[in-house]
C-alpha cells in the first residue's frame, strides 16, 4: 500500500470514528474514552502520513517513480549478468 492509499484509509477511519464518538453520548464513559483514544492514535498516524503522501506525489510528478497506471517500460528492468546473488553460482 502506498502512502496515499494509507492516507485515504486512515482518513476514512478517522471520519467513521468521529461519527461514532458524536453518536456515543449515551454510551458508558469507558467506551467513549476508548473511541477517543483510537481517534487520537489515528490522528497522529494521519499527521505522519500526510507529508509522506505529498512527497510520494511529488516524486511521481518528477518521474522518479512510475505513476499508477503508467505503461510498463519496454526494456526489461533487470538484465541477467551472471553476478546476481539470486543466480546459482
Amino acid at each position, binding site marked *: 500500500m502506498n502512502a496515499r492509499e494509507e492516507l485515504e484509509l486512515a*482518513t476514512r477511519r*478517522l471520519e467513521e470514528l468521529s461519527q461514532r464518538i458524536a453518536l456515543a453520548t449515551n454510551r458508558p464513559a469507558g467506551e467513549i474514552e476508548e473511541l477517543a483514544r483510537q481517534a487520537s492514535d489515528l*490522528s497522529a498516524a*494521519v*499527521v*505522519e502520513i*500526510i*507529508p509522506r503522501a*505529498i512527497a510520494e*506525489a*511529488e516524486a511521481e*510528478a518528477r518521474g522518479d517513480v512510475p505513476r499508477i497506471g503508467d505503461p510498463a517500460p519496454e526494456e526489461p528492468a533487470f538484465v541477467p549478468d551472471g553476478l546476481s546473488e539470486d543466480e546459482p553460482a
Partner: protein
Amino acid sequence: MAEVSRRQARRQAVILLYQRDVTGLPVPELVENALRAGEHADDPFTQALVDGVEADRAVIDDRITASADGWTADRIAPLERNILRVAVYELGSGDVPVPVAIDEAVEMAKKWCAAEAPKFVNGVLGRVARENEEAAA
C-alpha cells in the same frame, strides 16, 4: 532557522492546514510535530499563511463556495480545499502578484491531486481574482 523559499514555505503551510483540517489538532501541536520531523514549519511566511487562513477561514470558505460552481468548500477534497484556502488568502493579502498566487496553487494541484484538480483550482481562483479586481475598482 534555515532559509526556505516562498514555494517551500507555501508547501509547508498547505501541509499544516491539511493536517489541521483532517485531524482537528491545534496548529501549535502540528508545528511542533513538523519541527521534530525536520520540516521548516516555523518559517515566518509559513506561519503568516497558516495564521491568516485560520483567522479568516469562514470568509475564505464562503469565497471558495461562491466561486466553485455547484461545490461548497466543505465538499471539496481536503487537499484541494487547503490549496485553495492558501491561494485565496494570498490573493486577498496583496503581498503576492495575482498570477503568482494562482500559478503556485495550480502547480501544487498538478503535483499532488487528481488529474482534474488543476483546472478546478485555476477556475475558482480566476473567479476570486476577478471579484477582487471588481471590488477594488
